[in-house]
Each structure stands twice: as structure tokens, then as C-alpha cells.
């Protein structure tokens, strides 16, 4: 997926990075000592909204760490009120969706912002999010999608082929008329690293829990949340968003983090390169000086050539959804599954093609370019 320039630009702004690091123990990122000029303030405000960190911005201003004019205080607060109003609407939808899945006895875990805000931040209002992410077992994914249809959600894109989502997909995105978006995940990432995740590990550990509107919800445990944040940061948007990096820092700095378990899971998923890359990036971007067992390991980790090659697929704003999808072939262990995956990508159902590409021929050409143009298979 190509990231719009408007999303990329603010990540480079030092003030925005300092806001992203605000309140983190051990961060050396400096906030300005006087109110920002109008142009810099506008950039910071826009970046805070795009990066979903209006909570950190308001927190820094409220604490006096970021000096601001009265007008700037009002603008930041208004923006954050808007972000939190959206979050409350999403949480209302989450409670409704969770109840529906529970009544159908479909296991699920709340992922990303909706879970991290309540479990990993000192105050949930510090972490914004703009959609709901849930993990569901692949074999129940189609059923979960059908139930969400009953709640008024519609798929953003059709499935490439019947059964593809449950067998190979990363997530199904559903949208309601209200604008609420739900991503129903089967796994954490597209591409080869996503295919190597042992999905049973996501379900075998006792879940974490939090209460929302009187309803008890389940999330991944601390170590799995960290791995998800790392996969999301390293293998998602490029350049990575600041909020997933902050999530990583929040999780790595938790005193109860079981570091050997995190590393063992990453090794079992052949994802140590992903974990090390994400932790290094979080430490560098947020200028965290404190060393932890995991940050020290990440700093010293040297990825194998194959992993570097696979990581490179994700390390470009030009890398397309198709490129990641075709690269995923390398992560599928069974030849019969690889064949089925390739068949689904090369000969998708017409409804899928209509939603994403100009036609099947165009898709075949895109696929051929990606597979054969790089001289890899």
C-alpha cells in the first residue's frame, strides 16, 4: 500500500517525535521551551491528528512540558475532544460486535488501539484509534463476517476466492454506514512474515482482559501484544506511524514483560528480524536512552540474509499490497498451500478484481511483474 505524502511528512518533524515520546521514561527527546510559531504549530497539530496522538499532545501541554498560547491550547483540546468522541463511538460499536461474537461462541481478541489504550497506557485517553481490530480464528472468520453483515457492516473488498480469507488472508475489513470500520484479523501481517506466524500460539495463552462499558473483553497477553505491535510497525505502513512505535515502547518498558517468552515466540515464528527491527526503530525514533534486556538484544541482533530480503519487501512506501501478497508465497510451508495461494492471487474471483483492479489481465500483469521481475520465487 502506498502511504500518502501527508502521512509520511510529519514523522520527520522533531517536535512531533518529541510529543510521541512525551512521558516515556528514559526518552531524551526535547520539547521546545517556548510556544511554536504558527507554521510549526499547524504541522504539529496536523501530524498529531494523523498519527493519532492528540492525547499525548494535550497531556504535554497540560503538564507545562510543551508551552502553548491560549489559542493553541484550545485548538489542541478541540482536536482531542474530536478524537476521543470518535473513540467512544468505536468502543460502543466494539461492545456491540463483541456481544454478537460471544453469543455465537466465536472466540476473539481485541487488538491494537482499543486494547493497548486500556492495557498499556497510564490513561486510555492518551492513545487514539480510528478503527476496531479484532482477531478471530481463521476457521470461524467467514462466520464472523456473516454476523457482522447482520449488524450492518459491509466488506470493503470481496474475498479473492471462496475460502481465501480463512486460509491465507491477513484480515477482512468491514465498514458500517456510520463510518465505523472493523478489521477482522486472522493473523498479524501480510507477506512472508505473516504466513510464518504460528496461529495456535495466539490462542493458546490465557488472554488479558479489560472492562468497557461494563462488558469484560479479552485481548492478547502482554507478550503477544508486543509482538503484534512490532509486526504492525515493521511490516505495516512505511515509514511506520509513531503510535505503534510508542505502543512498542510502552510494552517493552513494562516491568512484567516476559522477555524470554517474547524472544521464543519470535524465534518460533521466524520473526526475530521483525522484532529486533521494530524495537530498534522505536528506541531510535523516540530517543530512548534507557536500555532493557530486549532493547539490548535488538541492538545486537543481526538478521539472516533471507530475513533481510523479506523485510525489504515492507521497507518502501512504494511496496504494493500485491507485492506483499506475492512475497507471502515464501512463507507458506506446504507446496499444496503455496499452489492454492498463487492460484487465488493470479485467478481471483471477478468480484475481487472489480473492487481493486481494472481487470483480471491487469492483475495477472501486476503479479507477473512482482514475481518474475525481482528474479525470486
Amino acid at each position, binding site marked *: 500500500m502506498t502511504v500518502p505524502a501527508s502521512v509520511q511528512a510529519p514523522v520527520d518533524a522533531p517536535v512531533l517525535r518529541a510529543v510521541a515520546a512525551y512521558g516515556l521514561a528514559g526518552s531524551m527527546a526535547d520539547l521546545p521551551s517556548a510556544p511554536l510559531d504558527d507554521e510549526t504549530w499547524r504541522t504539529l497539530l496536523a501530524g498529531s491528528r494523523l498519527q493519532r496522538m492528540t492525547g499525548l499532545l*494535550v497531556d504535554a501541554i497540560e503538564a507545562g512540558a510543551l508551552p502553548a498560547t491560549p489559542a493553541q491550547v484550545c485548538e489542541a483540546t478541540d482536536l482531542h475532544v474530536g478524537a476521543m468522541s470518535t473513540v467512544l463511538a468505536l468502543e460502543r460499536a466494539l461492545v456491540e460486535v463483541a456481544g454478537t461474537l460471544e453469543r455465537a461462541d466465536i472466540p476473539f481478541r481485541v487488538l491494537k488501539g482499543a486494547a493497548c489504550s486500556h492495557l498499556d497506557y497510564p490513561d486510555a485517553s492518551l492513545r487514539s484509534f480510528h478503527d476496531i481490530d479484532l482477531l478471530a480464528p481463521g476457521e470461524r472468520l467467514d462466520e464472523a463476517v456473516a454476523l457482522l453483515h447482520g449488524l450492518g457492516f459491509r466488506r470493503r473488498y470481496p474475498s479473492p476466492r471462496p475460502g481465501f480469507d480463512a486460509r491465507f488472508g491477513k484480515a477482512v475489513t468491514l465498514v458500517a454506514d456510520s463510518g465505523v470500520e472493523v478489521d477482522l484479523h486472522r493473523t498479524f501481517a501480510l507477506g512472508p512474515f505473516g504466513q510464518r506466524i504460528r496461529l495456535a500460539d495466539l490462542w493458546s495463552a490465557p488472554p488479558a482482559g479489560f472492562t468497557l462499558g461494563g462488558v469484560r473483553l479479552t485481548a492478547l497477553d502482554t507478550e503477544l501484544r508486543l509482538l503484534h505491535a512490532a509486526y504492525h510497525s515493521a511490516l505495516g505502513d512505511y515509514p511506520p506511524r509513531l503510535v505503534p512505535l510508542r505502543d512498542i515502547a510502552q510494552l517493552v518498558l513494562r516491568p512484567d514483560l516476559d522477555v524470554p517468552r517474547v524472544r521464543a515466540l519470535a524465534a518460533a515464528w521466524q520473526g526475530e528480524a521483525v522484532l529486533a527491527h521494530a524495537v530498534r526503530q522505536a528506541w531510535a525514533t523516540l530517543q530512548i536512552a534507557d536500555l532493557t534486556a530486549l532493547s539490548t538484544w535488538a541492538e545486537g541482533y543481526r538478521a539472516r540474509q533471507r530475513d533481510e530480503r523479506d523485510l525489504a519487501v515492507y521497507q518502501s512506501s512504494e511496496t504494493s499490497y500485491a507485492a506483499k501478497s506475492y512475497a507471502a508465497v515464501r512463507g507458506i510451508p506446504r507446496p499444496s498451500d503455496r499452489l492454492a495461494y498463487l492460484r487465488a492471487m493470479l485467478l481471483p474471483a471477478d468480484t475481487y478484481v472489480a473492487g481493486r483492479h481494472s481487470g483480471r489481465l491487469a492483475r495477472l500483469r501486476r503479479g507477473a511483474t512482482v514475481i518474475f521481475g525481482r528474479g525470486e520465487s
Partner: protein
Amino acid sequence: VSPDLARYRRSGGVLYRRVHDVVLLLAPGERQVFALSGAGPDLWELLAEPISVRDAVHRLAADYSVPAETIAPDVRRVFAELAEMDVVTRAEA
């Protein structure tokens, strides 16, 4: 029993966030977010545990150094509005 002695607490189904000097509330079954400002966020903090209108008036009067009788009508009105929206419920005695 005086209505001021009835104890209230936050409803189980309410969703909320504190933002600077405002508390945003989303009542069960509602789509419209409601904002509590002024002394409202402090009242919301008090409602984390069951509290009567009378006790809330006295706590807020002490916190803001104002006479209880001055703020009592406003506190009663806010309690009534919150109860009307199902944001707070009567606590069991």
C-alpha cells in the same frame, strides 16, 4: 427519605474519557457524546463510588471553597440530567 440522600454511581454501560478539563460521556444506547465541564469532571470522579447528592455538594463545596447552599441547586440539576441520560444509576443502599 430526602432525594438528596439517595446514592448514585456511574452506570455500568457508560463509556467515558477525560480530556483536559472535560469528561466526555457516551450513555448506553446513545450515539451523541455528552461533555461534562466546569466542576463536572470532579463530580464524575466522585461518582466512581456510590455517593449521595448531599455528600457530593459538600465535597465539591469544600474543594472549591464555596458555600454548599450556593452550588447545591446546580449539583442537583446535574445529577438529574445524568440520571435522565442513564449515565448514573441509583446505587443499592
